[in-house]
């Protein structure tokens, strides 16, 4: 990015109520919600639960009946709605691109409203197209109808990011896409968020999408209130009530597998050595360890090869280039589900886990994953028992 991007700001909803004229129950009732700066918060629930209404009140597309919404500590009531919206990115279902404008012109709308000069707008458009993975020279002058659904939504995200707003509102942005495009765009949103750290309010009715994207998830229930506001793992292991449990549906354990990062579980530690380590010392350590193998790392602590006792027996001097090259490694940010997949496809029973700069952090085997699953399950059972006890006691 040519200039550092604006990071997210906190958003706070205080006792926000919205009653539509003619509606019996308010669409949103005294809702409190604190969103930390730079987080993705997902509002999830069945249709009519008030999640979209809640989101639209943040940029004042819907005016709250009562209550206050603070964006970076300022009440949104004090800001002119059009001005406010120019500093809040807005992404909607099916992208909502203007069909009579080119892709570039679509993205340029907010910068134009803000009075940027032409050259700055043109540079920004190209920068954003690159950011969302569309080749500027190919897509700049095309019309939205020539793009696939996924490409349209990429342009939609680029348009929302155009003026580098600290906050992004996304209303079921990937709802109309096919599963493959949806997954790809979800992954890219997470990748973008790693760099941009915007505050994102994301509305969906898909609990899996919520669990995947959300730093925090607000599960909403009709009419217009939040049942549980927590981190995804917390919601899976400790659903607030029967409604949340029902909403989560079956397969919570499998979901937990896809939510838990490799870095979050206890990893296996294997003996390791640098290429210039003394072979006899390494052999001695392997015998102490008892498993009979060790990992050879390069100068940057990146795993290179597995060596066994057979490789080193009778060898003098440094370990050198002996051993079998590793067939792959697992990044610590991978989910347990992905790790499991890689383990099942690997040549060896144990695969090294790497962290920053691909440096060695530990190792993963089927047994490690199994232990992790068991401990998560145990934790879940314990929590459920606790809750049941609480409910009976109360």
């Amino acid at each position, binding site marked *: 990015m040519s200039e550092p991007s604006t990071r997210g700001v906190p958003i706070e909803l205080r006792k926000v109520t919205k009653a539509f004229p003619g509606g019996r129950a308010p669409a949103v009732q005294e809702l409190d919600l604190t969103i930390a700066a730079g987080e993705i918060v997902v509002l999830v629930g069945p249709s009519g639960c008030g999640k979209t209404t809640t989101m639209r009140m943040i940029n004042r597309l819907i005016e709250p009946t009562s209550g206050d919404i603070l964006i970076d500590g300022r009440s949104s009531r004090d800001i002119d709605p059009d001005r406010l919206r120019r500093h809040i990115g*807005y992404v909607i279902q099916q992208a909502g691109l*203007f069909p*009579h404008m080119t892709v570039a012109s679509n993205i340029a709308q907010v910068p134009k409203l803000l009075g940027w000069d032409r050259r700055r707008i043109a540079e920004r458009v190209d920068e954003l197209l690159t950011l969302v993975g569309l080749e500027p020279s190919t897509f*700049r002058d095309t*019309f939205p109808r020539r793009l696939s659904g996924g490409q349209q939504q990429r342009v939609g995200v680029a348009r929302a990011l155009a003026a580098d707003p600290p906050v992004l509102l996304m209303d079921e942005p990937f709802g109309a896409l096919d599963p493959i495009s949806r997954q790809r765009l979800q992954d890219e949103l997470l990748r973008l968020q790693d760099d941009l750290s915007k505050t994102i309010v994301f509305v969906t009715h898909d609990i899996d999408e919520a669990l995947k994207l959300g730093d925090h998830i607000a599960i909403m229930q009709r009419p217009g209130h939040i049942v549980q506001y927590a981190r995804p793992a917390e919601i899976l292991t400790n659903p607030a009530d029967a409604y949340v449990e029902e909403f989560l549906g079956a397969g919570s354990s499998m979901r937990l597998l896809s939510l838990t990062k490799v870095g979050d579980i206890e990893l296996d530690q294997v003996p390791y050595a640098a290429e210039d380590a003394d072979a006899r010392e390494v052999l001695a350590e392997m015998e102490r360890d008892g498993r009979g193998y060790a990992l050879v790392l390069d100068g940057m602590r990146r795993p290179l090869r597995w060596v066994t006792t057979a490789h080193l027996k009778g060898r003098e001097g440094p370990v050198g280039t002996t051993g079998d090259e590793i067939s792959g490694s697992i990044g610590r940010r991978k989910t347990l589900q992905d790790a499991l997949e890689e383990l099942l496809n690997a040549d060896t029973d144990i695969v090294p886990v790497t962290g920053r700069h691909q440096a060695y952090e530990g190792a993963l085997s089927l047994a490690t994953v199994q232990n992790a699953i068991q401990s998560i399950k145990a934790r879940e059972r314990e929590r459920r028992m606790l809750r049941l006890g609480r409910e009976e006691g109360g």
Partner: protein
Amino acid sequence: MRNLSSDLSGRQPRQLPGMELRKRAERYFGFGAASSVTSWLMNLWEYVEDRWDLILFETAQHASMVAQCVLVAAVLGVLVGVATYRHPRMASLATSSAGVLFTVPSLALLGLMIPLLGLGVAPSVTAIVIYALLPIVRNTVVGLQGVDPLLVDAARGIGMSRRRTLARIELPLAWPVILTGIRVSTQLAMGIGAVAAYVSGPGLGEQIFSGLARLGGANAVNATLTGTIGVAVLALLFDACYVLLGRLTAPDGPLRRLVTRSAHV
């Protein structure tokens, strides 16, 4: 041979009423004895050639009257449409009142205007504008209501004001429908413009009415035909202009392309 002669003899008595009719028609329309199609066309051409300057002047007058009336009606109609399309009741009131005016026969409306506006340009222009309003109002309302609400929401959501949303999103998207309305109005105005000669309005109607007034007299049919054909040709020319305008203002048409290009270099 027998057959032929009997045919001839058989045709003889039946020719009489036909001959009679033709003679009467010739007397009536002033065709003269040579009445084959070519000589008839020659006759018309002579008429046009003799009065070329006058006819050209009247055609230009007609075109200019129609163009100006449609322009006024377009501005008024789009304004009425824009003012009412968000309120279904107002919109239907606007279209239905324009519809009621539409049902009044043009000749009657023109006649009714004489006591109010006298003769000449004023009643003609007023009547044409009134008739031209309906298709434009209706199509503006329909066009604006047909814009995907999602797009309006997107425009408002990224911080466009109501007015800007209307100017940049809604009107451009409704434009093809509005243009169709204007096109229909133009065709209407062409016809009513001709009738306007009844109140001494300008244009080709003068030819038609003067011809009809002295039917049976010299050149009566030529005058009427010249007026009618002139209006038809003018209508076709205007229509061609609209097709061109529609192409030019299409989203990827040259006009808009020029605008977007210049904004993004």
